[in-house]
């Protein structure tokens, strides 16, 4: 046995608690003098501690999933004031039926997590995300704020509002989700429920089967993979397209948590503050700090779209779901250089064209239509003079790399237009995609416009270009940002790590 192996053997005995006095002294001597081995010993202990902390309980063999990092959270009352404390060994023999796994930037309206056992607790999650493990159902559940919910029993979650994603692994004992509008019973699957308080609940099935019925109604529907139903009142549920990317899955929690821990929210605010100092700033729509939920910055007006959590806990975004959902605004600018940037979360592959930012109508030379297409590409449309159209100068340049792999996660999109060089460049997640030459060098005209949609109604047709998903911010600058500036902003404002 080599000296190194001998040292590891000493470490093993120590960690197992079976080291003799002589072995402890020998190990101590190595640790005192050998910094490299000291580090290895710490790593060895780290693995042992992690295995002993409940990590295994939620990590089935051969399945990469998301173990109970904080399962060792045995809270107990310390004093009459219901202060929290950690139980200890006894807790390990009476483990909670529903455990807290992770919190990502979670803020509660009241001290909701007052016990190791979460059954019977009501929670009002104001911001952030919470991950729970329903042990009996073998279900991992992610709830996104704002959300009001109660853990009724070991297999039942009651949602008054908010979004919940559930991954039930073996399906032996289903998880039940109750809302004011519906009663959902899992039959072994991945599914999600979106409850809009006072309005409706939607059930989305990504994989497997779910049984769902309107609250208080005997009839129940069976939903299978890629099906969704909307329950509004006691009337018949309405079939909906499944919005896979709407819901935060356990997989995404890790990257978001790492982002929060790394201080990305603060970096994003700093980057925002810096860019807002830019003298060419035309508009910054962050969907924040507007007392009236029906308005956005720059006098914009929200119509139908829902204000939801943005890419950071506690931040805001607009969500576009129904065909008429949009926000109106007027940036009121004409510029020869233009940069548009946005953070969006695309729910699904669009049916046709999805509007990121569309000026109204299609009759003014220089007006801009920025969109996302069903082939996964970005498009920058600019109207040309009628004469140019006849000469074939009307153009809709498109990006190269399809964005379809970016569904269900926050993605940063940017487009840079320069009338002088007659070029348009596209960027995805801070990375340069392509540059397309324009035949006409018109100044960009940013007049009355819509975010997230483009409704064109005339006597012949009614068109919609609804973006299915969320938009966190939209930035317009009257200059061309360089590739490095765009990359720098993306890195600083990225919610993930």
């Amino acid at each position, binding site marked *: 046995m080599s000296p190194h192996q001998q040292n590891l053997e000493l470490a093993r005995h120590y960690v197992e608690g079976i080291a003799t006095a002589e072995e402890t002294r020998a190990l101590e001597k190595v640790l005192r003098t050998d910094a490299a081995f000291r580090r*290895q010993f710490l790593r060895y202990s780290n693995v042992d501690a992690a295995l002993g902390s409940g990590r295994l309980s939620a990590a089935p063999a051969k399945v990469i999933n998301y173990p109970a990092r904080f399962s060792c959270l045995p809270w107990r009352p310390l004093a009459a004031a219901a202060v929290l404390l950690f139980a*200890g060994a006894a807790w390990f023999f009476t483990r909670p039926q529903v455990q807290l796994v992770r919190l990502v930037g979670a803020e509660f309206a009241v001290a909701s997590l007052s016990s190791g056992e979460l059954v019977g607790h009501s929670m009002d999650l104001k911001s952030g995300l919470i991950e729970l493990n329903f042990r009996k159902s073998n279900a991992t559940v992610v709830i996104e704020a704002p959300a009001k919910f109660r853990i009724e029993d070991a297999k039942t979650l009651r949602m008054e509002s908010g979004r919940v994603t559930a991954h039930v692994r073996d399906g032996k004992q289903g998880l039940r989700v109750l809302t004011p509008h519906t009663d959902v019973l899992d039959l072994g699957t991945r599914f999600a429920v979106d409850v809009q308080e006072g309005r409706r609940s939607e059930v989305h099935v990504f994989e497997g089967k779910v049984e769902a019925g309107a609250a208080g109604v005997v009839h129940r529907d069976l939903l299978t993979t890629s099906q969704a139903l909307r329950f509004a009142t006691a009337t018949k549920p309405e079939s909906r397209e499944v919005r896979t990317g709407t819901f935060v899955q356990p997989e995404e929690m890790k990257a978001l948590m790492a982002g929060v821990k790394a201080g990305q929210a603060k970096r994003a605010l700093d980057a925002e503050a810096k860019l807002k100092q830019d003298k060419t700033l035309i508009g910054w729509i962050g969907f924040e700090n507007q007392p009236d939920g029906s308005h956005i910055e720059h006098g914009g007006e929200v119509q139908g779209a829902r204000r939801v959590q943005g890419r950071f806990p506690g931040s805001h975004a607009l969500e576009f779901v129904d065909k008429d959902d949009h926000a109106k605004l007027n940036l009121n600018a004409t510029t020869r250089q233009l940069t548009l940037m946005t953070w969006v979360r695309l729910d699904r592959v669009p049916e046709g064209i999805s509007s990121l930012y569309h000026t109204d109508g299609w009759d003014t030379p220089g007006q801009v239509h920025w969109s996302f297409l069903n082939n996964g590409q970005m498009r920058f449309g600019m109207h040309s003079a009628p004469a140019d159209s006849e000469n074939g100068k009307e153009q809709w340049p498109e990006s190269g790399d399809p964005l379809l792999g970016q569904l269900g996660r926050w993605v940063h999109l940017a487009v840079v237009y320069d009338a002088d060089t007659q070029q348009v460049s596209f960027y995805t997640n801070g990375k340069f995609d392509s540059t397309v030459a324009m035949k006409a060098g018109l100044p960009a005209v940013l007049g009355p416009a819509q975010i997230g949609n483009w409704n064109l109604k005339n006597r012949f047709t009614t068109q919609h270009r609804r973006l299915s998903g969320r938009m966190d911010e939209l930035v317009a600058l009257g200059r061309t940002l360089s590739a490095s500036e765009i990359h720098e902003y993306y890195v600083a404002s990225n919610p993930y790590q």
Partner: protein
Amino acid sequence: MTPAENTKHDQFLRLYVEHEEALNGFVRALVPTRDDAREVMQEVAVVLWRKFEELPEIQDFRRWAFGVARFQALAFLRDRARDRHVFGDDVLELLAADAAADADVFEAERNALDECLGKLDAAQRTLVDAAYAPGARIDALAATSGRSPMSLYKALHRIRLALMGCTQRVLAREELT
């Protein structure tokens, strides 16, 4: 609780949950057994909560909590030094300093462990599940499995080393992408 107490309580809870696993790993390196670590962690939690009001800046929570954990582990070992085989203060100080300095690395390794656990074969996984189950004892496990305690200890040792190697590979791969 008053609204102010609620806020304070939630703030503490968030911070503690965020750092609990790192503190646990840190304490585990300083004390000989998992039961010892559990005992120390109970004290750490109590002290952190009692003294939470004295924390001047929330941003300092991690550094402060590591300091409390280190102190509690050393106090625990001093109390038991007569009848336990523990390290001297100078080595404990070295370990404490290294563990605090590399806390981020250890956290990354714990996160990578999620993936590595999924790569264990069925027999390894069964053994790990049984040996790390709440209240598990190696002698009882040996009796029910028909293997000697020593063979189980050695098998677990090999698994821990394999997991250490795997976490390093996972982290190296992530750095490349």
